Structure formats: C-alpha cells, structure tokens
C-alpha cells in the first residue's frame, strides 16, 4: 500500500549566531491511510520542528530545510510554490497545536475563525459555511454549537478550545491531521476525552493522524505505529505492539522503565541519568551514549553514529549493541501496521 505521507531523510537546520544547529536530521517516516503514527520524544528533540516542516510553517529565516523530501501522495511538498502549498494547508493536511489557550485569535469569534477556513477551501457562501462550521462543532461534541459559534475564545475552557481547534481542522475533511501534543496543556480527564474524540473521528472519516507526543500512555492507547526520536534523529521505529513488547534501543527501554505502572508498589521509578543534550552541543557518535547504560566505554558508541537499521521485519533501531547490528540492512522505516480493534497495548 502506498503511504499517504512519507518523509524521506528530512534535515532541518536553524541558523543562529553561534552557527548552524541541526534540529532534525535525516528523519524518515511513513503515515499510511487511516493509520495513527506517533512521534515520541522529549522536548527539544525535534519532533515539533518535524511536524511544522511538513506544512512548511517553520519561520525561515532562521530555519531552513537542508535536504530530504516530504511526499504527500507522492507529491513533494517542499517543491510546491507557496500558492499551492496554501491550498494543501488546511485542506489536505490540517494541524492542531499544543496550546489551545493561545492558538485561537482572541479578537474573532470561534465561528468566524472556522468559517474562514471553510470558505478558503470550499466553494460555499457565508451562510453555508456557518452551517458547515456548526455541524463540525457538533461533530466534536460541543453542546449548543449555534450559540458557541458566536462566542469569543476567551469565554471557552481549554478543553473546549481544543475541540474548537479540532472542529476547525476537520471542517475541510483533511486526509491527514497533525496533532502536535494536543493534550499536553489540558487536565487529565479532558485529555482522555480529547483523545477519545480523535479516535472516534478517525474511525468515522478514515483520516490519518500524525500524533506528536511525549506521553507513552497516549502512544499506547492511540498509535498504530511509533517513531521514537532522540536528539534530532529517529532511534527506533516499529508497530506499537513490537515497540512495547520488545523495545530494542536503550533509550526506548529507559523510557518504558520510567513509566509508572499500576500495582508496582514500593518500587522506585527508574530514571534515565543525565539530561537531554543541547542541540547546539550534541555529543559525538551515538547522541545517547553519555546517558546509555549499555555503553561500558565502548569507543564505537562515542565515535560512530549508528544508522537506523532494520533489526527484524517491521522493526528499526539504531544501536551498536544490538546483536549483529552492523550486518543488518539500512532501509527506510515504514510499517502499515494497524492495532486490533478495541485492544490495549500493555
């Protein structure tokens, strides 16, 4: 099956006074139709930059795409003229952001903001656009959408605003929704509701989701496939079952150990020692080696950056300490795995 969205070796850099910082390096991933791909990593690892680069929304200057391709149904978005790119944004790919509190314009009503998106991409008059907006707000579970349409964002709660953002994003029936930490700023109960809503909408409309998060709980419940990002690179890529059952990269293993589990009474939560490296001063070799429990003074770790290699069918990782790592093939990671309906990953 052909992926809906494919990133091939995307590299993005920021020009700063102290030189060039490569925030995203040779990231490849594929999102298949109706699939949810989760991009996981700590803050500053480059996952948001990756997402914004897909829509070419990173401010330039200072940032710049150094290489790679962003293919939407085989069409390279990086080569499109700005005018055509504008018709991709919102129509083919919609995006929702981490901060629902500030992502809506405070001086326009939510209705005006949704209608603006509708009228931009669909050939309808204002009245029809308002009907579409109202329906779209009803779809995301907002009560009394006809009244809410005429309210200003500051009158709505955070969860409600994120629903408005989703309504706006989905009003033009996009093929792909990029959700950049959609629940981070919300209360835990609201988080669950929003994720539930996204899942339901995905089922109804058959769209794909690129879910960016740092929360492994969110990944376990929503994703079909997972790409783990560390310090500008993808270090592991697999279906959600493979990743949670048999994590290969020491970083992924550390992350999973750091997740609190119900019933694990009296155990201390494991932490990965050290901190996320500063993008301006990445370590040499494998960027994880200063924090890696498997390193044991191995000169290869500090000297050579491991490529992302296919460890087995549908599972990619980059670690010198994996068995027979050097002989594994370097392939572009992609898996169209789908989670079984109603199952949970443990």
């Amino acid at each position: 099956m052909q992926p809906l969205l494919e990133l091939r070796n995307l590299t993005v850099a920021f020009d700063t006074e102290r030189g060039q910082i490569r925030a995203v390096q040779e990231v490849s991933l594929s999102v298949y139709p109706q699939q949810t791909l989760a991009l996981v990593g700590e803050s500053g690892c480059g996952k948001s930059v990756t997402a914004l680069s897909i829509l070419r929304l990173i401010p330039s200057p200072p940032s710049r795409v150094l290489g790679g391709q962003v293919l939407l149904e085989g069409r390279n978005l990086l080569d499109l003229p700005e005018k055509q790119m504008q018709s991709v944004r919102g129509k083919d790919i919609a995006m929702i952001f981490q901060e629902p509190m500030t992502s809506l314009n405070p001086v326009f009503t939510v209705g005006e903001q949704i209608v603006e998106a509708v009228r931009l991409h669909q050939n309808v008059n204002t009245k029809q656009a308002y009907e579409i907006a109202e329906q779209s707000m009803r779809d995301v579970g907002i009560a009394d959408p006809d009244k809410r349409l005429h309210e200003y964002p500051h009158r709505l709660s955070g969860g409600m605003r994120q629903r408005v953002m989703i309504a706006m994003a989905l009003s033009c029936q996009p093929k792909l929704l990029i959700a950049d930490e959609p629940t981070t700023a919300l209360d835990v109960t609201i988080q669950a509701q929003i994720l539930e809503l996204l899942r339901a909408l995905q089922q109804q409309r058959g769209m794909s989701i690129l879910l960016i998060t740092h929360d492994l709980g969110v990944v376990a419940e929503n994703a079909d496939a997972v790409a783990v990002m560390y310090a500008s690179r993808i270090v592991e890529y697999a279906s959600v079952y493979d990743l949670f059952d048999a994590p290969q990269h020491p970083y992924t293993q550390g992350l999973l150990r750091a997740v609190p589990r119900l019933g694990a009474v009296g155990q201390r939560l494991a932490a990965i020692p050290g901190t996320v490296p500063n993008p301006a001063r990445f370590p040499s070799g494998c960027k994880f080696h200063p924090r890696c429990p498997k390193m044991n003074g191995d000169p290869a770790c500090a000297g050579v950056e491991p490529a992302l290699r296919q460890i087995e069918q549908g599972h990619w990782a980059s670690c010198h300490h994996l068995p027979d790592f050097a002989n594994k093939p370097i392939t572009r990671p992609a898996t169209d795995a789908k989670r079984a309906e109603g199952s949970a990953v443990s």
Partner: protein
Amino acid sequence: MSSGAGPIYPLAVSPAEAPAEHRSYFAEVARDAVAPRSAKLALAWIACVAAMAVLAPLIANSNPCLINMDGHWSSPLLRSLNWTDLALLIVAVVGGALGCVRRKKFWPNMTLLAACLIVMSVVYGFFGPPPQNVVYEQYRDAMRQGRVQFVLHAPIPYSPSDRFRDEPDTRLLPPSRHHLLGTEAFGADVLSRMIHACRIILAMGFVASGIAVIIGVVVGGLMGYFSGIVDILGMRLIEIFEAIPTLFLMITLVAFFPSEDYRLLMLMVIIGITGWTGYARFTRAEYLSLRSRDFVQAAQAAGLPLHSVLFRHMLPNGITPVVINLSFGIAAAIIAESTLSFLQLGVIDQPSWGAMLSQATGQGGDFLWWMALFPGLAIFLTVFAYVLLGESVNDALDPRRRR
C-alpha cells in the same frame, strides 16, 4: 499498560550541565548593554560631554593660562577657577584614578573622595583667590598697550560671559575664524557658552534624575511593601501627578519659585519632583511581587529594621525596571531643562543650550542659523545618546533576547 502515564522525562540534572558559575549579573548585563556599536558611540558622546563639563574653564576661558605682564609671570586662568570648577576636577581625577586602581571597594573609595573634597575646600577657603570683579578686557587692553611679553591662551580664549565691551561690535557674528560658532546677542562666544553649558546637561542628568529615582523608589517601595491603604492612597497621588501634564506642572513650579540664587538647583529639584511617578509605578509592581518571596520573609523574621528590608534586601531584586528607564529619564530631564530655558523660565544668564536656541530668532525676525543649529544639535545628540543607551540596556535585560 496503565493509562495516564506521566511524561517521559523524570530525568536527573547532572551538575555538569547546571548553569555555569553565576558571574555578577549586573556586570554581564552592563557588558551586553555596551556591546552594540550604537551604544559605544552614545557612551563616547556622553563621556565627551562629561569631559567638557569638567574641563570647561580650562578649555574656554578669556583669562590666559600663562602670561608675562610687566615682567611678572602669572596664571590668571588658574586664579579664576572657583570652588565648583575645582570640586568637579577633583571628583573627576580622584574618582577616575580610584575607579581604575581599585574598582572593587566602592564605599572606601567614596569616603576617600569625600575626604579629598573636604581637604580641598579647606585649602581653598584659606588660600583661594579673593573674590574680585572679573574684568575680561584687562589682558586684551594690556596686550594692545604692549605691556605683555608672553602670553599662552586657553584653546578657546573666550569666557562664556565675556561680552567684548572693548571691541567694536561683536554681537551676532556668524561663525568665523575667531569665533568658530559665531557670537550671540550680547557678543559672547557661542562655542565657549556651549562648552560651559555641558555642566547643566550633566547636572540635569545626574541630579534631577537622581531626585526622581529616589522619590519614586521610596514612594513606590513603601506602596508595594505595605500595599493596602498605603497603596491605594499612593496610587491616587500618582494618578493626580500624572493627570497634570508634566510641562504644565514644571512651568507653574518654575514661575512661582523663581529662586534667584539657587536657580539651577531649584530647576533640578523641580524636574526631579515632576518625574518620579514612572519610577514609583515600576518599583511598586516589583515590590508587590517581591514581598511574598522567601528571602523577604526571612529578613522580616530575622527582625531586620524596615529600611534594611526595603533597601538592602528588596531593592537589588526590584531595581531592574528602574535601571532600564533611567537612561530615558535622563533624556527626558535634559529635554525638560532645554524646554524651560527655551521658554525663558530656566537658568538666567548662565549658559544653557535651550536658552541659546531661543535667541536664534533675533530682533526684527532675523534668523541666526548658527544659534539654532549648534545648540539644537548638541541637545539632540545628547538626548539621542541617552535614548540609544537606554534601548541597549533594555535589550540587554530583555529575557527573550538574553540566553
């Protein structure tokens, strides 16, 4: 897998990655503030004005530096120096030297400086020149009569109040070889007056803004610290003062307190007491947020006296907005002085750039371009320098641009 798992970075901070040893924050900000070229140029201009102010009587003076008249050697210039001239020179020389040699010890240096001033004032009181009527013409007359064997003039051989009564009409001459920037309505040299006027600018900058800052910080600090009724009353007071346009308040004060003897001091006080409200607002806001902080409560709990809590412990943490706006405040004070002098409500007879500018439109509607261009340019450059410096300090302290 349990749902609602937390974020994935409960990671320890290694000491190596902690911020590097905290060098003096203010030293760092100061270095950043003077880094841009515009700030360097601005500082250079301000330093130039300050140097002119200190050295004015040595640069522009009708009294010769050294003269041999009727066979007697003398230095009328040195004898003409008054107490203000000497005090400024001492502060500049001793202060500069101490600042270079031992920059760490602020209070001992200040004490030493004060001691020098006191000693000099005593010496001056006993041995200084007796008060005498200045007759600027005497040396020129003597030269014409051929009684002078040797004479060495100051670089600009005209005093600011030398009206050339001995020479044919020297009034309102455009710039020439003799008077580089021309002469004013009474015949005095414009350049000489401009150099001496630097003193007023310097005084305005330091004294008037200093008064404004002190009133503002004290009132704002008390308001923020006590809050409640003190704060409400204080805010009303600030609003009242801000509702009166500053210039209106200033000209009213100047017109009704026309002190003859201490006019300059009066002017500085008036500009100071009309400019404090901004500083009070900033300090109040800072103190309101500081008062609930741990170190303030610790200081209170330790039973420290109020002034110690307010000014030793809280002030260094709440002074930043005042520092940002100090430079703009000085610029505003300079404009205020120039404007008052321009409206003939400022200093009388003493040289001032603003007052000179007001003479540019002469009798009969003539326009004396040199009286407009040079003093105006000097005001503009000084104000611009302070504004550039303020912008630069602002940028250096801006947390968004600072890393």
